[in-house]
């Protein structure tokens, strides 16, 4: 047939329950279709030729945003755009800081939070958010449900511990607490493009002092998370505990090169060399850690990252 279609033929199935979805996924060559914003381009270029797409968008329980036990649960078909504006999702300010960087509005209309995390593109924002917050991935399979911490989830470029017959049903993000401050930044060639380098930051300030954690992306085959509490403390020793943002940024810059050397393990690519990415990370980390620290000093208000 002389048709202009791009993808190779595939069977299409749209189950109505998670259980049925898992039954379908057990078949050879089956692939989950969530928002399709990464999968459809892959099919269009025939980089992938799954024999069956399991469209999970009709499963009602996967559409939920829920809040319990200090966690925000984001179901497998919850759109990125929905999370960006959802009141409940405001409890995870880092998501709100990161989402505007994910593609464009038109992409976020369909793309899902879980899909981005399952897809695990090394330059994607949401895997870094999940890593920085140490989110929990809830993965269902024939044997039951596994809960996987972010630190064990991402195994390499576009690789996670999810098996082909499993479904990521939900990601649980811890909600922000009093004393939390967040920072997020990235450098891309143009808005909406994947990042050349980016950093997500959480600083938690309590009476015992401040702890800082960064998760960098675009610089390795998976998000790289580090505790930078020591570097923040020594910068604060230099500036005092109530510094001006630019002073703190400068003080952090003294440590940023060391951090960048540690996290950047890409050899560089056509878009940016490893050395350039290190420079970007050094700048992003010092700026965003400074911001996150200053926010952590402010009284906690939900939804105001």
């Amino acid at each position: 047939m002389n048709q202009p279609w791009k993808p190779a033929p595939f069977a299409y199935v749209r189950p109505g329950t998670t259980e049925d979805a898992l039954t379908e996924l057990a078949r050879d060559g089956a692939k989950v279709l969530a928002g399709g914003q990464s999968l459809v381009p892959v099919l269009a270029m025939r980089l992938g030729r799954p024999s069956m797409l399991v469209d999970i968008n009709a499963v009602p329980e996967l559409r939920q945003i829920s809040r319990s036990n200090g966690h925000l649960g984001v179901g497998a078909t919850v759109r990125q755009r929905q999370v960006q504006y959802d009141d409940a999702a405001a409890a995870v300010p880092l998501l709100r800081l990161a989402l505007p960087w994910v593609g464009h509005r038109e992409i976020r209309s369909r793309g899902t939070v879980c899909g981005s995390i399952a897809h695990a593109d090394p330059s994607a924002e949401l895997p870094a958010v999940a890593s920085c917050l140490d989110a929990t991935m809830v993965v269902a399979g024939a044997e039951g449900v596994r809960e996987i911490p972010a630190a064990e989830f991402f195994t390499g470029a576009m690789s996670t511990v999810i098996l082909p017959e499993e479904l990521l049903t939900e990601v649980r993000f811890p909600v922000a607490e009093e004393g939390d401050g967040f920072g997020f930044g990235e450098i891309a060639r143009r808005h909406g493009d994947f990042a050349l380098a980016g950093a997500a930051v959480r600083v938690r300030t309590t009476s015992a002092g401040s702890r800082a954690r960064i998760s960098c992306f675009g610089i390795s085959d998976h998000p790289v998370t580090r505790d930078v509490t020591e570097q923040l403390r020594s910068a604060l020793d230099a500036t005092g505990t109530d510094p001006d943002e630019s002073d703190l940024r400068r003080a952090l810059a003294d440590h940023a090169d060391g951090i960048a050397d540690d996290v950047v393990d890409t050899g560089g690519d056509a878009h940016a060399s490893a050395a350039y990415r290190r420079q970007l990370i050094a700048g992003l980390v010092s700026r965003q850690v400074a911001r996150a620290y200053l926010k952590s000093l402010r009284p906690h208000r939900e939804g105001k990252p």
Partner: protein
Amino acid sequence: MSLPYAYARTEADDTVDVTMTVNGSEVTLSLPARITLSDALRDHLGLTGTHVGCEHGICGMCTILVDGQASRACLLFAVQLEGAEITTVEGLGRQDDLHPLQESFSKHHALQCGFCTPGFLMSSYDLLTHEPDVATEDLPEELSGVLCRCTGYRNIIDAVDEVAHAHRDGLPGPGNCAQRTLVGRTPSGAGPAAAAEVATAAVPGHHPDEIALPTGEPTITVDVTSQLESAPTEVAQVFGDIRLLARCLPGAELTDELGDDWYRGRARIALGPVRLSFDGMAQVLEQRDDRLVLRAQGKDTGGGSAQAEIVMSATPAGTGVSLHAEARVFLTGRVASFGRSLAGDVSRRMFEDFARGMDRAAAGAEPDVGAKPPGAVAILVGALSDRARARLRSLRQRSRDRTTRRDRRRTPSRDER
């Protein structure tokens, strides 16, 4: 998006039915699962306003609204859209009543080659409906999901900015979304499995419940009066025979009588390099000796559609008849881009030819209309005029009977359908 529930399943070589609402009209297509929404809109519904560039989500040409949110039509499979509401650039405004965004794009010269324009219109429509307070300085970033190869960004931003400022309390909705019957078509060169058909409209021998006209101003209105030499009784005979009547129109051809006053037919129009061929249906709403009301809808194979309501009345004038024709014609797609005045002129000229044909037919001669377009009429001219006249008499009796049961057809409500 309301999706139906378990289990929709399509094997790789099968087609699946999907029912969605496109620009206010419900349509059912039968498609293979791997047809993207952009291809379905363009190739199966003739809505070629949705452009296709990269086909993997980068360029934004194919941006449309799904349930009110801008999305990439090239990154959706049509089968996923069961129950969804789609708005394309064709739904945004009418040629004679453009959406404020379209007006503004025109005013600010925000379209050069125009390839990116539908994408920018739909993307900015979404932006301004969801973020009416968007600041001027945020526009470049907010609109960065669509690329313009002519790099006309500055004017595009000016155009959107002006509309944003003028409509802070709410952007007017899409102005060309109405219930109408969309006739699916088969893309040229496609095998049988690729045929997309509107469930009822395209099955031979079936007709839709009604032809619903869009609301608002038509693209063309025709209002012509022609003097016929034939006597009122002779004209009444032609009014009573739809087959004969169709032959009075150059290029028209009745291909099928579907019953219940429904007819299937074709009309061909040739204007210089432009060749249009409409396939469609007509429903006679009123048929009296001196008055005829019908509605017609057709799809041009090149991707335009037309809907029309035609009212003809014959009034005695001297020994002859004054034939008055009024038509409201709604055009979309390629034919609409013709330019209104040209299309209006063509329609008027066609009516004049039609009146001449009627005069001949009423006089019992073959309606040998001038300016014969290729093919269509010639096939019919061979018909025996004796037989035609005999049929005429019997049909006329039927039409008298029919006039007593008029006006029962009313637009059924959505639920009834």
